[in-house]
């Protein structure tokens, strides 16, 4: 099977004097995988996720996602790449307060200039699948943490991305909602969605992924396939 994501000797420094946030990381991920990137705070796992999403640029090394060499993309090309290839889920949801649920979900498709009718149909389907369609006209401030994250997942899936990147997706919700979000992500992965999950919790990594990459001080400490994840 050909790689979906490949990193070759990727290093990211924010300050030349300080230690790199990501140091000489090389790895490969495959379509349909559910990979957890695990490590303590400040280990470089979120930086790694940002580099894969082309939201930041490495100091050195090469990053491939599909056929795109993402570290070489211009800002415009990177934005188009994110629309097409990446769905992002954040710990604090990052929903837009002044837009309703449906408008938040529709936004990636609208920015990608998708046909309005097609986009609305897709958004409705996603809200149904994620069991949030009854709140489609609510504003984010009126939603619970779990509901907000389900809206964020719907928004991330709107353009049918090749890979779903989740940065501590259960970090800002209560336990029950966390379980629910985790289960949703597993369902999506089971349906073929490639998933990269960043977490500092070994338990979460073990339950919701099939491969765990441990990061420490910006370097890969271990890369371990799991069996029976989420089961």
């Amino acid at each position, binding site marked *: 099977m050909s790689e979906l994501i490949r990193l070759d000797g990727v290093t990211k420094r924010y300050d030349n004097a300080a230690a790199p946030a990501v140091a000489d990381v090389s790895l490969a991920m495959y379509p349909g995988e559910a990979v957890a990137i695990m490590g303590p705070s400040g280990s470089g796992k979120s930086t790694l996720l940002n580099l894969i999403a082309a939201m930041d640029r490495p100091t050195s090394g090469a990053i491939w996602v599909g056929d795109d060499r993402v570290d070489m993309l211009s800002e*415009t090309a990177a934005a188009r790449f*994110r629309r097409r290839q990446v769905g992002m889920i*954040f710990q604090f949801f990052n929903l837009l307060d002044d837009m309703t649920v449906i408008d938040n979900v529709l936004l990636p498709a609208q920015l990608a200039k998708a046909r309005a009718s097609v986009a609305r149909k897709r958004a409705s389907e996603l809200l149904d699948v994620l069991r949030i369609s009854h709140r489609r006209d609510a504003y984010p401030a009126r939603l619970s943490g779990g509901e907000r994250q389900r809206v964020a997942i719907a928004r991330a899936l709107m353009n049918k991305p090749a890979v779903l990147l989740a940065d501590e997706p259960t970090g800002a919700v209560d336990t029950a909602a966390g379980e629910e979000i985790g289960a949703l992500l597993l369902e999506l992965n089971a349906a073929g969605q490639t998933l990269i999950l960043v977490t500092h919790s070994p338990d979460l990594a073990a339950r919701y992924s099939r491969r765990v990459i441990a990061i420490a001080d910006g370097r890969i400490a271990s890369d371990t396939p799991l069996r029976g994840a989420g089961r």
Partner: protein
Amino acid sequence: MSAVFSAARSAVKGGGAVGGRKLQAVIIAVVLLASTATSVIALGLLVNAHGPFDRAFAQRSGADVTAAVDTSVATRSQIAATTRLAGVTAAAGPYLGVLATARVTVPGVPGSSSDSLRLVGRSSPDGPVDDLTMDEGHWPANDGQIVMARGAAVFTGSTVTVGSNQLTVVGIAESVTGTADGWVLPAEVAALTGRANPAQAQMLYRFANAGSTSAITADIAELRAALPRGALLNNPASYLSVRQSEESIIAPWVPFIVAFGLIALVISVLIVVNVVSGAVTAGTARIGVLKSIGFTPEQVVASYVLLVAMPALAGCAVGAVAGNVLAEPVLNANAHIYQVGALGVPLWVDIAVPLAALALTVIGAVPSALRAGRMSAVQAIASGRAPRSSHGYIAHRMLARIDSLPRAVTLGLADPFARPARTMMTLVAILFGAAAVTFGAGLAISLDRVVADNPNTALPVTVSLNRVGQGQSSLSLGQQHSVVSALAAEPGTLHYLTETDGNVSLPGLSESASVTAYGGGNPAWSGYTLISGRWYSGSPGAAEVDVNTPFLTDTGTSVGSAYTFGSGGHRVTVRIVGQVFAPGQNPSAYMSAATLAATEHGATEPQEFDVAVRPGISPSAYANTVSGVLGSSYQASLSGGSRTLNAVLALIAMLTILIMVVAGLGVLNTVALQIRERAHDIGVFKSIGMTPRQTLAMIVCSVTFIGFVAGIAAIPAGVYVHHGVVPVMAHAANSGYPASLVSVYATWQLVLLALAGLVIAVAGALGPAGWAASTRTVFALRAE
């Protein structure tokens, strides 16, 4: 207080990014600089327009009214009785004088010139009224000596010949209200008078109540009533006319500069209010921290006021200096008029204007600073960032439904609804900026028409005799035939007029009127626009004239009036049939050659041919061709242009651009605040695929609607200001105005001008929008 100062200073130094307080400080400083400079120019000119004349008038006991009395009608005792009238506070005279045609010879200058002079007999330059200032030389000590008024093209040693009497110029003096062209000893007057030029008595009065035209009119009516009927020759001269005439060079500049200054000040205050309000909104957490470490509400208020006051003070100080530098050329022109040495912006203006601008700024900042002071520490720290109001949600919702517009555009269009107060202030700032553009453009068109409605433009080529250094000479009949033949043979000739220039005395007034007589065609070809009435009829015996506004004002006549010209002892009554738009200090009359001949009591040959060329023909090339045909005895030259008006046009352009920049800075400030507050949202947009171009479009669109609305609203506002200021300028220039000077806006021009608001908005937004568009997604996402 040092803690407050330190907090304010660190706040200014703190933000380097777009929306940071460093940028806001720069914006405050620049807008205050621009508005202070404009206001200093405006007030400096305003003060100097009146100051020098009033000062000189008071110091030299200038005459409120200068009257000429016919001594054959009023007796000496009747004249003396007028000095005891109730309203008269001081009087001088009667000084016997004479209106005489004189030949003036200046040593070293070949030939002599002929002029009509009002000569007055006075035993000394001093007096209770109209205390003369000796510029050079001395007062006449013997017969045969004369002191000439300042401004005459003579100097000591020149000779003035009246009839067979030769007078030597022994001094130059100035009368603040120009009561005479020259002064001789009283005994000399008898020798200068004759049947053709009888003596008149000049009376100079100061009145208790002379502050307005109506008061002066009442004073003159009192004089007229006290004298026998017909004794008071025409309308006595009022110092107000002289003052208005003296000021007419600088005064027209003042109204539009004042208008620009006020617009700049209003925009500045709006921007400052926006800056401080934005700083408070964006700095909520900082306010909380300041309070938690012991800042009292008063100290928080003081720190926010200082945040604005420090850059504002710098802007005001530099603005005052800039205002002085920019006002200097205009004031120098004024100083030259009054010959009062150097004129400068008064010190009190340099102090008062920056202080007023600073005070307005601080007052504008106080409400927002008070809001910061009232905020509780817990609330401020807990929120961590500006509490987002729920304004604009409906707009977002509705605009999201418009599928025909790109989503980035609808996102931007919804933005102004999130902060209605800030949007309104930005809208008003753009409105004022765009109104200044409409006003400035209209003013430029009006002044362009002043240039166009001028003989120099309508008749750009002048053909006359080539007599270098010998003054202008009349063309003989044979010479006129030669010129006519040459012009007729030249295909570029459109039409031409003959022109004869001269002066005629205005009985009862110290000044004379310049006369232009056109012949050989339609006087409307002269290029002058009529304010009212019609052009004179050239038919023999019509005795009709057109005059400019100073003529009507100074002589107290109106269109339709009959008026008697005097030249020497010769009097001719003409009818005024039209008012010509010819701004200037002096009265002018326009008549046919036949009427001039009657007025001058003799034949008057033209001095030049004024020629209009066909469209597409270069006046310069035409003049060269005609010169070649006529030979070296003649000269065909281009009529002069107007450097003053070009300077005014440049000033208008500069002030308009300055105000556009200030309004643009207001937009920049608003957009910068918006980006600062929405930095995180912009990061989210980018993370889900918004391209830099879409980001740019979104941010620019957030002000385009405001700019569009402001641009539309600015049209009536700008037109209103233009329609208000142009008549004031014309009045200050001692002139009426034709309707064409006010109705200047074509529909297509208004449509274009309506886009000014949009241009200001987009130009102001592009900088910060470009910065936000190019910001890396991760950086934007981390921003709070």
